[in-house]
């Protein structure tokens, strides 16, 4: 299994390199370091959200509310900034993390305590969160000139040649890699997804682990919310609409099993990067950006079909165990 996942990541890495070099043969400007950094930075919000989504999918759930959470938290950050222009960015970051985590916790509580299927919960909260943005703003936009300069400048400030937005992607990824491999919570997430019954017998609270997964996913969505709003310097109801699908796509392409329990942070990051490269390469090679939706849809289907190849013998196993039961 591990060998398979490793080969999948190598394959994905290879696909990204092939894609980049194909574009580079005709447009050398695409592979200049500055442009590659720009592509990476542009993909950073997707990476952050995909890591949160992966954690949720690992525990056999799904979080379709991440984009709405991002939009709501981002809007609240922007409104706070309008009301208190001098508030330091550090406080805004804390607010975005706490608020995102709170919205994630709502999902988590409904899944944990009321045992409602995650897809129903998050489909519901997705529309509710977006509706709340409308209630807060009456559909008005918050534009660049209403936000204070340090608020919008923060994610774009560069350290060592890369914008802070890009560094956030790297830092979140590093923390996630360590946390998934080295902490009790990280390991129990794999256990819950791999075999919930066995997880219960080893003393893991399945519901609570799923709850934490939703909180983490929400927290990262909230963080991405502030970064997104500040980077584009605009906030409105429909920001990042439909982005949740791209996030799920990144996970599935990265080899995260939708049945839970299998997937790596590296794979997820590569999945996000693959989509990011496609998205940034389309305008360069002069293909209409309208292709992007169809491409990520096709990528999801191909990736799921590819993932299923490893579990091809499932049907036979079920029959065998049923025969044993007789």
């Amino acid at each position, binding site marked *: 299994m591990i060998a398979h996942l490793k080969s999948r990541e190598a394959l994905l890495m290879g696909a990204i390199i092939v894609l980049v070099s194909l574009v580079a043969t005709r447009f050398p400007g695409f592979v200049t370091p500055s442009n590659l950094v720009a592509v990476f930075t542009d993909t950073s919000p997707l990476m952050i959200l995909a890591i949160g989504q992966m954690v949720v999918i690992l525990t*056999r759930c*799904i979080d379709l509310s991440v984009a709405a959470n991002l939009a709501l938290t981002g809007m609240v950050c922007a409104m706070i900034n309008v009301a208190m222009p001098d508030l330091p960015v550090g406080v805004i970051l804390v607010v975005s993390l706490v608020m995102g985590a709170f919205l994630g916790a709502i999902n988590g509580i*409904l899944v944990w305590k*009321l*045992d*409602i*299927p995650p*897809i*129903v*919960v998050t*489909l*519901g*909260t*997705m*529309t*509710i969160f*977006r*509706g*709340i943005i*409308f*209630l807060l703003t009456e*559909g008005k936009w918050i534009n660049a000139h209403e936000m204070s300069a340090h608020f919008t400048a923060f994610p774009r400030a560069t350290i060592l040649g890369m914008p802070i937005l890009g560094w956030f992607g790297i830092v979140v990824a590093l923390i996630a890699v360590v946390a998934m491999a080295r902490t009790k919570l990280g390991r129990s997430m794999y256990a819950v997804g791999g*075999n*919930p*019954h*066995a997880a219960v017998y080893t003393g893991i609270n399945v519901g609570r682990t799923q709850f934490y997964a939703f909180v983490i996913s929400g927290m990262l969505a909230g963080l991405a919310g502030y970064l997104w709003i500040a980077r584009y310097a605009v906030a409105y*109801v429909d920001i990042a609409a439909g982005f949740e*699908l791209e996030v*799920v*796509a990144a996970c*599935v392409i990265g080899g995260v099993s*939708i*049945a839970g329990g299998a997937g790596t942070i590296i794979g997820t990051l590569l999945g996000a990067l693959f989509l990011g490269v496609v998205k940034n390469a389309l305008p360069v090679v002069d293909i*209409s950006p*309208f*292709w*992007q*939706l*169809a*491409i*990520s*849809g*096709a990528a*999801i*289907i191909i990736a*799921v*079909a590819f993932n*299923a190849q490893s579990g091809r013998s*499932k*049907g036979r*196993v*079920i029959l065998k*165990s*049923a025969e044993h*039961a007789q």
Partner: protein
Amino acid sequence: MSLAENTTRSIPDRLRSPLRSKVVSWETLLLGVAIGIFVFNSLASPYFLDAWNLSDATFNFTEKAMIAFAMALLIIAGEIDLSVAAIIALASTAMGVAMEMGAGTPVLVLVGLGTGLLCGAFNGALVTKLGLPSIVVTIGTMSLFRGISFIILGDGAFRGYPSDFSWFGQGYVFWVISVELVIFVILAIFFGILLHKTNFGRAVYAIGNNPTGALFSGIRVDRVKMILFLMTGLMAGLAAVCLTSRLGSTRPSIATGMELEVVTMVVLGGVNILGGSGSIPGVVIAAFVMGLVTFGLGLLNVPGIVMSIFIGLLLIGVIALPRLWAMWRKS
């Protein structure tokens, strides 16, 4: 693997609960809610109790309900199709392309239904032939189908459908009874008989309760699922015909988010989201409830996005309340 089966379908055992009476009570409750909303609306707005206004109100749910009937069977069988709204977009776009090439109304309808059927076949093949989970497959095809519409249309739109094409979405059979309402009633009867009175319907319940058990009792599980996906696709195609005819134009963003409302309608109708139980009469009443709610809120000048909060709360509340009630009774 059998463990995995157990955890994904923790369905209440049919033998333990008097399901029949439960379903009946759920539907009566829902009917009570519908009547309550009706009375409230007629008191809240002087414009509500008008034959033509009420006739207009039915358009809020007829198209969604067409899909919801087929979706109910699909969910009872333990699968789901989140791509229905995207199928509408693609079918509508296909009709637009056919219209540009000079097709008449009969051809347009065939193109719409045919596109729906093809999309359903694509979903069904991925789920049954490759054994993929339907949630992910249809999340993928949801982007794919709508993506194709965007590729074809970009930010443009198709307009200028033939005038007799408008009959489906704007026509009336007699007085205030619209064509769509008649289609809705016919489909309700058809799916009600199919689910509750035929072997096929029993097979759907059996698959939803225990797919492996159904397989061993001689039900061709994959074939039944394939038919259900085809029916859902066909119904989405039909809804596309009606919606396109009613709006008179096609944009790639047509019917955005409708899959959520369809799933809400099905779940509100008492169908277990995990599969295995539910009824068509429940879905019919749920359609009326949702139609009345959105129409009533519309008369009170509540904007659409705020209504979607109600839909979202309804979706979660409908599942949460019985569970809270059960927890409260236990303690």
